[in-house]
């Protein structure tokens, strides 16, 4: 994807928004210019919420990766583990874990822990399953030739399984970013005074400040976008071979 194409697309979206706002002529659809103005006016406030939300989602992603990657590699490589846990994963995977949020709140209260826990719970399975399947699909030729160099299970993890998992981990995290931010919004709407979700909800439902509501939504979009860029950057660092021509 080229930078120029991204810029053209962004400008087109803004133009359509501007035209729609002018046509609709209602205060619940402010123009991009008004939203930009609100964004700048409330920059301090928005930044405060942005950082809180960003930390929550990044910490959640890190914990989910730290738990799901070893679990996925273990299940992929140790058949006994896979036999024991696969039925459980199969049953739990399709359940929309978000419905457990009220229950988690009953147990752990309206805390940071509850918010992070629900995001981790959702991301865990979205990372676990592809990592497991990917490590099951490693070619036996590759494993045999590395074993013939003297590698036992520990060296196989160090030199084969872990580096082979980088691309699939990054891909599954990239696919999970949208979900993570959506769940984040849901957790921040209730029982907190910090976070973009709270800010958006407050500005729309209580303050009726629609330009600021949109500014909050834009900030949330930027958060998702930043995470995307971060993952792209990590991929270039960790998987240089995918970009070699």
């Amino acid at each position: 994807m080229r930078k120029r194409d991204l810029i053209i697309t962004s400008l087109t979206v803004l133009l359509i928004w501007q035209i729609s706002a002018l046509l609709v002529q209602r205060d619940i659809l402010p123009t991009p210019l008004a939203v930009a103005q609100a964004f700048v006016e409330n920059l301090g406030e928005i930044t405060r919420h942005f950082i809180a939300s960003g930390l929550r989602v990044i910490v959640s992603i890190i914990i989910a990766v730290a738990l799901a990657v070893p679990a996925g590699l273990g299940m992929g490589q140790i058949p006994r583990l896979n036999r024991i846990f696969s039925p459980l994963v199969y049953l739990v995977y399709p359940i929309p874990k978000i419905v457990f949020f009220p229950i988690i709140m009953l147990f752990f209260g309206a805390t940071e822990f509850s918010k992070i826990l629900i995001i981790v719970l959702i991301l865990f399975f979205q990372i676990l399953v592809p990592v497991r399947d990917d490590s099951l699909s490693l070619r036996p030729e590759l494993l045999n030739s590395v074993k013939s160099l003297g590698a036992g299970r520990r060296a196989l993890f160090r030199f084969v399984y872990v580096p082979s998992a980088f691309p699939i981990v990054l891909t599954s995290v990239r696919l999970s970013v949208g979900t993570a931010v959506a769940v984040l919004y849901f957790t921040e709407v209730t029982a907190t005074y910090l976070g973009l979700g709270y800010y958006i909800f407050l500005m729309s439902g209580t303050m009726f400040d629609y330009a600021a509501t949109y500014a909050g939504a834009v900030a949330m979009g930027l958060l998702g976008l930043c995470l995307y860029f971060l993952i792209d950057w990590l991929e270039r660092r960790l998987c240089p071979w995918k970009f070699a021509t």
Partner: protein
Amino acid sequence: MIEFQNVTFAYTNARPVFDRFNWSVERGAAWAVIGGSGNGKTTLLMMLAGLRLPTSGQIVVDEQVIDRPRPRTGLVLQEYGLLPWATIQQNVALGLRVRNFYGPDGRHAPIEHVAGPIEPQVERWLKRLGIDAMRARYPAQISGGQRQRAAIARTLVLEPDLLLMDEPFAALDAPTREDLQNLTVELQREQNLTLVFVTHNLEDAVFLGQKILVLGQPPHVRPVVIENPQAGSLAYRSESAFFEMCARVRESLTHYSLSRSTPVGPVTPHA
């Protein structure tokens, strides 16, 4: 060097591929193993490499019963043996890094292994195989022939005394294949290697194998061996004796693939 002692191998719920099979390979010999697909070539090699265990009987390499990969046995496979995420330099260094990872424990690395700097040895083998200009590239960026050179370098940097090769040139075009055949002959002599080269290709087998083990229709009870003393000379490929030998191996292969009777004609069973 290698002793197959009453080796039986059968996949679950199938008739045996090897049935009390005895076979021996002397140190420094160059053997080719030829046979059609499904005839047990790769099974034989995997057992020899310690990656698959016989159902009964045992394989002894250098007075040691094989029950896991042996540090001084090198293995080169047809494809996919190189780590796609590592550069050629890193791939060639892999075996040495694995050895340094474990230290000289006699299981993963030879007892006499001294953990030390890897670069000089890796550099020497990259140069010896003519791939030093490719050191920073990834396997997907170089040709099939260069990939096989890297796979060979990665194995030889560990100074093996036994080299096992499983169809290593099957995916290569004819000139590259001949080039690598020559290289294999040179390296086998130069490093004083015992070579077991598994192939379905007649020219590979006749050019490289001073003795050729013919695997026809399984189960294999007695080894069928063709003596091919002229193998290993670079000129052999264009001599008429070479083509006669190819015809003889083909005939034997056909014979044993169609029937399981005792050997007849020019074929001498090997004790």
